[in-house]
Every structure is written in structure tokens, then in C-alpha cells.
């Protein structure tokens, strides 16, 4: 790998990089913004990049790299997570949309054509966080060379190129969003829509803002909402979904509603995207070029060392595998990842909680999967417990239902079975009725 790699691919110089506030932003203008922001950034080794506007995130992300600083990408906005990051990285400063806006407003307008900066391949461009089992977030180091290599693999697989615009419902701070909506425009010439549309009508409007060809980057949760919204959709070249496997039924419905192929990415924060499929054609996943699987460990391409996968897989041949299921402990809801160990640790840290445990009920066809928790905390009411949890966890991990009991259901060997917990949860309505009458 060369020692330095450019910030922008050279073969897309004339195509816009973003649609931002009703305007197309050229790559030259983007570079001027990024260089200007680089001069304003606080002098800290790490920059916690909290920008939600995708263009401002992109410009800040690039600026941090230009200064040889490192982007910290939080896994959630939970107060505790952000506080712990500030503790773990004392030489860090947070930046948000309001900072970028202020800095860009102070920029003197010019049309200078700046040279494209080159960053060392081993520069620590970003640290992406996932929840660890011990209660503290786990850092995943992302060097510039690895990110570039991942972007090239994705470009090859999906044909990312000039003339395509990406509309994404996922945040840029997560690896999936970072790869598809930040690294793709830098390294493959696609243009991004700066908004992060939320409701189906927002998604439709964002797609309609830009000319074809359009790509919708989303998750099963959003895809289901869009499919059921009964809207008339603008023409789309293809859709990409990730964070959880799509059911063949939803994929089929989505292909019909959008009249476009629905492709899926499989990956993890440690390795980034590693494989893709179109479930309408095949239920197996095709590895990106350069990776290989050995048991449940992935290696090759840009990975400095083998990465264990979070799922149980069945290998077909050297390029293809099938997902058999999630390892029990890992939780993936609405694109947010956590583990039962982490969640259990957090609930047991709350003052007044004697013992608490999370459980993930089985998915049903009609409902999005939600967590439940069973807790022994005689002096706390449900509201106090939820408030304490909300400080520690992303809202999607808040338990529903949260059941208060006198003691946890243990069998004679002291073990708590999933079945016993699920039985408590199924009977939840009657328990809470008793509580209301108290």
C-alpha cells in the first residue's frame, strides 16, 4: 500500500459531492470548506464529530484528517457514553453542526482550486465505538488506508460512480453510514444528499430533490415503514439495506414498491462491510474481493488481524457463506448494536437495583423486535428505572416491557432460563395491573 493516499479520488473531479441546502456542492468547493474548517478546529488530538448534517459531517471528517487529527464516532448520543468518551480521551474536543455553520459563515468566498490533500495510509482517521461487555465502549481503530481499501471494495461491488446520488437514513457516525455516505463520495464519485430523512415522506422528498440515478441506503426498520407508507416513489437505481438481514418477504415487497433491486450489505464495526447479497436471487452472501473466511474468523484485504464474526455462519465455498443466526449475546435493533452483557451491566449499575436482566423475545412477523427487562428494585418505580436507563442507553434499548418482580426466576441450580424470563414477560399485563391497584 502506498504511504500516502489522496482524500478524494482523482477520476471524479468534475462531479458534485453533495446536495446541501438546495444546492449542488462541487468537489472544489467541498475542498475549500474542508481546508477552512481544518484551520478552525480545536487543537486536540481527537475530535468528537457529532455533526448530524451529512455534508457538515463529511467536511468536518475530512478536515480532521487534513490536520492529522482523529475523528471519534460515538455509537449513540446517550449521556453516559459521551461522558465516558470524554473521560477516556482527555485530549478530545466535541464539534457539532452549530460549530461548522459558524466557521463556514466566516469563510471568505473564493474560487481557488486547492490541491487534493494526501493522508498517510497509517493515519488513525477515526475510532468507531461499539458497546463492550464490561460497560465501557470498545474502540475500533480505522486507519485511512483501511477505509480507502473498504471504499474501493464497495465501489467495485456496487458500481458506485459519478452520476449516482445517495440518500441515506442511517447516521454517518456508524460504520455502515460512514462507508456508504462518507467514504463513497470521497473515493468513488457518488454525490450525497445532506439530509438524514426519517419519515417515509422525508425519504420520498429527499429522493425527489436530486436527479436520477438515485440509491437509497437504509435499514430493515425504515424499509418496512417506506413499503407500508403507500407513497409514489421517485425512480431509484437500487436500494441497500444493512444492520440486520431482510426477510425474503419484505425484500420482495420492497422490490415491487420501489421497482428496483434491493441489495444487502453484511458487516460489522470491526471489519466494516464484508459481503453483499440480493436475497431475491440468493440467500447466501458473497464476500468482497480480498477477504477470506476461516471458521468464524474473517481475514485478508485491509484487515490488520483476523476478526471474529458476531454471527454463526455456514461456509459454502471460499467466497460464499450463509448466516445461521446471531450469537446469543449480541443485540441489533434499528441499526444500533449492543450486547446483553453490556445492557445487564448497565441496569445493575443503577442505584436501587438489586438485580436486573434483559431478554430479547423472539421476533414475530408483525412487530419490530423489542427488548424486555425483568428487575428487582423495591424502592424504584418504573419511571425512575426508565429515567436512569435512558441516561445510560440509546432509547432503542430501553426495555418494553420493564417488569418489576420480588425476585428473579431462577431454577434449582440458580440459573435463569430464557424461557422463565419470557414466561414472566408474556404475563406482564396482569403483573402491571396488580401494581396499578396498589
Amino acid at each position: 500500500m502506498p504511504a500516502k493516499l489522496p482524500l478524494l479520488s482523482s477520476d471524479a473531479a468534475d462531479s458534485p459531492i453533495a446536495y446541501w441546502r438546495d444546492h449542488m456542492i462541487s468537489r472544489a468547493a467541498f475542498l475549500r470548506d474542508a481546508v477552512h474548517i481544518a484551520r478552525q478546529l480545536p487543537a486536540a488530538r481527537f475530535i468528537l464529530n457529532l455533526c448530524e448534517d451529512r455534508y457538515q459531517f463529511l467536511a468536518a471528517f475530512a478536515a480532521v484528517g487534513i490536520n492529522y487529527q482523529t475523528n471519534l464516532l460515538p455509537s449513540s448520543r446517550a449521556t453516559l457514553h459521551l461522558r465516558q468518551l470524554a473521560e477516556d480521551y482527555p485530549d478530545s474536543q466535541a464539534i457539532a453542526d452549530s460549530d461548522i455553520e459558524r466557521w463556514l459563515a466566516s469563510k471568505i468566498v473564493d474560487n481557488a482550486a486547492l490541491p487534493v490533500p494526501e493522508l498517510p495510509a497509517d493515519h488513525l482517521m477515526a475510532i468507531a465505538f461499539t458497546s463492550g461487555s464490561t460497560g465501557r465502549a470498545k474502540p475500533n481503530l480505522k486507519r485511512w488506508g483501511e477505509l480507502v481499501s473498504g471504499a474501493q471494495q464497495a465501489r467495485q461491488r456496487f458500481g458506485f460512480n459519478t452520476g449516482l446520488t445517495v440518500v441515506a437514513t442511517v447516521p454517518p457516525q456508524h460504520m455502515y453510514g460512514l462507508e456508504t455516505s462518507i467514504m463513497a463520495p470521497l473515493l468513488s464519485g457518488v454525490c450525497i444528499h445532506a439530509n438524514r430523512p426519517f419519515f417515509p415522506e422525508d425519504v420520498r422528498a429527499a429522493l425527489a430533490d436530486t436527479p436520477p440515478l438515485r440509491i437509497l441506503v437504509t435499514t430493515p426498520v425504515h424499509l418496512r415503514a417506506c413499503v407500508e407508507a403507500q407513497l409514489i416513489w421517485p425512480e431509484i437505481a437500487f436500494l441497500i439495506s444493512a444492520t440486520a438481514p431482510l426477510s425474503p418477504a419484505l425484500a420482495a415487497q420492497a422490490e415491487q414498491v420501489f421497482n428496483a433491486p434491493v441489495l444487502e450489505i453484511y458487516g460489522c464495526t470491526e471489519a466494516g462491510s464484508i459481503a453483499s447479497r440480493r436475497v431475491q436471487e440468493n440467500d447466501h452472501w458473497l464476500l468482497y474481493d480480498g477477504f477470506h473466511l476461516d471458521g468464524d474468523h474473517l481475514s485478508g484485504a485491509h484487515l490488520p488481524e483476523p476478526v471474529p464474526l458476531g454471527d454463526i455462519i455456514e461456509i459454502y465455498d471460499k467466497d460464499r457463506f450463509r448466516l445461521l443466526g446471531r450469537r446469543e449475546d449480541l443485540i441489533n435493533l434499528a441499526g444500533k448494536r449492543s450486547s446483553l452483557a453490556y445492557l445487564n451491566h448497565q441496569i445493575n449499575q443503577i442505584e436501587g437495583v438489586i438485580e436486573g436482566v434483559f431478554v430479547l423475545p423472539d421476533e414475530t412477523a408483525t412487530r419490530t423486535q423489542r427488548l424486555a427487562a425483568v428487575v428487582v428494585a423495591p424502592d424504584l418505580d418504573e419511571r425512575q428505572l426508565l429515567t436512569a436507563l435512558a441516561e445510560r442507553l440509546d432509547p432503542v434499548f430501553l426495555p418494553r416491557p420493564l417488569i418489576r418482580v420480588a425476585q428473579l426466576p431462577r431454577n434449582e441450580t440458580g440459573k435463569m432460563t430464557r424461557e422463565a424470563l419470557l414466561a414472566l414477560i408474556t404475563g406482564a399485563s396482569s403483573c402491571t395491573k396488580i401494581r396499578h391497584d396498589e
Partner: protein
Amino acid sequence: MSLEALSPFELEVARLLVETLHLEDIKPEDIAPEEPLFNEGLGLDSIDALELALAISKNYGFQMRSDEQQNQRVFASLRALSAHIAEHRVH
């Protein structure tokens, strides 16, 4: 529990909330009209917001849109949400 009575339309929206989000242990008439719906309060999240938007489009014939500031205001409470629906409903 709220001491303040819900208007008939607020009660209708409260029923929709409880049904759509399967809030089995909450009675519609017990939802405090000014209480926050998200995080603390009823503890709703982004998945709920999507489900709710879908139910609103089916029942009242309009699509929810998020305009940053406005979105927080609309979902601030049952009262705010009911007022938003009353203003935008098509049927």
C-alpha cells in the same frame, strides 16, 4: 396519573398510541396530556415514531414530515401531537 381530563380527540389519539405501540400496561385515559412522549415520559423512541407515523397516515390521511425543530414540538406531548393531527388531517 393525570388529574387533567383529555379532550375527546386527545383520547382518540391516546387510543391510537396505545394500540399502535402495544403499550399494554397503559390506559389511554391515563396518559398525561402534557407529558413528554419520548425518552422519559412514555419512553417512546424512533421505531415508535415510524410506527406512529404509519398509523397516522392510515387513520388521518396525511404523511408526517420532520422539519428538525418542528418535529420535537409535534412529539413533545399527546396534546401537541393531537393538535398537529387536527391541523393536518385529511379525513
